[in-house]
């Protein structure tokens, strides 16, 4: 897998490293660059801003194009969505499923990634990574059959299992590049000092990989939080997650744009706040394995 050294990893994390020492070219290029960067930021942020604005408007104001930006904000949509539609329950469901599936996937995935990295078990790794390639629908029909016979559809267990299926390959992939970059010598010297190999893993390697596990864990949480297809089929009325709840919202209230945008904002805000506080982990996770030659 990846050949990132410790130094490189930490260099990549702050996305933009101050490394250029030379002047940046002509004045015209500088102007162009500033304009282009502003355009990029606008393109990425403006739609979300529009969603937020609409969630603060009444439906009358949404239909009035003269009130695109200037209007009297109201929190009525949020009050409606959160109180009448049980969104607190859905928020809890999403959180619980994401949290438990991430935790269990870390327990299974971290030792596996360690073994696969140390003993270069590339074929075994491929088995786990296959899960990322297979279209989820092809697994859902058999899962649905088995789990509904076991009377598990609609329970949390089956949702957690299906989300672990998404999380585990991600965690193995990220942790393998991470372990590849940890120097072997540390463990070896710990074993010379009398630790067993598993002891060395527990007392030396694991504490050193906390950053890697944070990266893998956060990304897995985000992917689970955002997952739609598995929850659409496998969740029940009591275990419905937020993305499915929003989707349902459309079918019976497709005209209530304000409410819909409030619901969409409610699902997006928590994950964005988490992302903002953990940026460097997300970036290093998304780019894991990218720079291998």
């Amino acid at each position, binding site marked *: 897998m990846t050949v990132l050294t410790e130094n490189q990893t930490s260099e990549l994390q702050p*996305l933009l490293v101050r490394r250029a020492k030379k002047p940046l070219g002509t004045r015209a290029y500088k102007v162009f660059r500033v304009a282009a960067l502003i355009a990029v930021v606008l393109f990425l942020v403006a739609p979300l801003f529009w969603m937020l604005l609409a969630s603060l408007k009444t439906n009358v104001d949404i239909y009035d194009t003269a009130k*695109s930006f200037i209007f009297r904000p109201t929190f009525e949509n949020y009050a409606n969505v959160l109180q009448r539609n049980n969104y607190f329950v859905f928020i809890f469901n999403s959180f619980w499923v994401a949290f438990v599936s991430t935790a269990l996937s870390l327990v299974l995935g971290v030792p596996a990634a360690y073994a696969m990295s140390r003993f270069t078990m590339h074929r075994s790794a491929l088995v786990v990574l296959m899960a990322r390639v297979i279209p989820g629908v092809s697994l859902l029909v058999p899962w649905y059959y088995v789990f509904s016979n076991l009377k598990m559809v609609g329970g949390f267990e089956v949702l957690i299992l299906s989300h672990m299926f998404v999380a585990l390959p991600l965690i193995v992939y990220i942790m393998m590049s991470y372990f590849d970059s940890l120097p072997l010598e540390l463990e070896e010297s710990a074993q010379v000092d009398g630790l067993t*190999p*598993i002891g060395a893993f527990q007392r030396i390697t694991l504490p050193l990989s906390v950053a890697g596990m944070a990266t893998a864990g956060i990304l897995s949480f985000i992917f689970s939080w955002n997952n739609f297809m598995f929850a659409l089929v496998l969740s029940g009325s009591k275990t419905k997650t937020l993305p499915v709840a929003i989707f349902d919202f459309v079918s019976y209230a497709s005209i209530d744009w304000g409410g819909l*945008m409030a619901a969409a904002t409610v699902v997006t805000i928590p994950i964005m706040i988490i992302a903002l506080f953990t940026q460097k982990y997300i970036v290093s996770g998304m780019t894991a394995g990218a*720079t291998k030659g």
Partner: protein
Amino acid sequence: MTSPRSAARKSGRAPSGRDKFSDWANRHRKWLFAAPAMAFVGVLIIFPLAWTLYLSLTDSQGSVRAATEFIGLENYMTVLSDVERFWPAVGRTLTFTGVALVCEVALGMGIALLLWRPFRGEKWVRVAILLPLVATPVAVGMMWRLIFDPNIGFANQLLAAVGIPAQPWLSGQDTALGTTIFMDVWQWTPMVVLILLAGLTSLSEEPDEAARMDGANAFQRFFFITLPLMMPTVIVAILLRGIDALKTFDILYATKGKGGGSFHEVETLNVYAYGLSFDYNQYGLSSAVLILFFMIIIGSMWLLTMRKKAVSK
């Protein structure tokens, strides 16, 4: 690595049961560590895949529990001769993936180059790049539905401001697929940017500097130095993004619903297979579609991996 030594042998005590276990565990740690994860994924994959393969040879429909009859390759014949739904879906899947990938890689490379050298306010750009990546796809779909609404959407307000007539966007038969590609580009270009930026940052400066000394201009340096050096990273980005783009579901289903819209205008293979399975309960047929879909994915991955090996040599 040093050979595993048990604590018992070192301290000279008679080995207790616990020591024996730890001895055994240490000797077999390779599989002790790897097996649980592999078993978990294996059980959840291999059995369903085998079953999908089996179902694709039966006339299973209505209820998964219903008695089914073995009909050989009939489903495959039906699917492969289906020019109404299947082949258009294949076309849309490839169009969606191809166009989205080209846009994402081209835009991503441009943005990554812009961000390569340090500048003031990079923190803000970094935040902007992360936002689409972590936004929930279903919510993103809903957001674009409002923006692209033909009557009240902001997209048409913008067009009106520059004097272009209103477009139907998502609701148009010809424009819907393009509009969803646009959404995919919005959401996933940032990931390509991150990957390419990581690649750019790890490039060594010498070749670029040498070319600069020789008087190469910015374009020459990019096309003859940076781009060739970046090819392996570009292919990693295409591979990672391509797998997901082929399987796109959330945004398409969230914006257009069952069957990819009333004229199936955004029905890709994944949406088609999902609809056959869960909206219309045609399990046999959908399994055949899925097996074919799976073969397309594996095929394109294999091609790309070959290409990557050729490039990184």
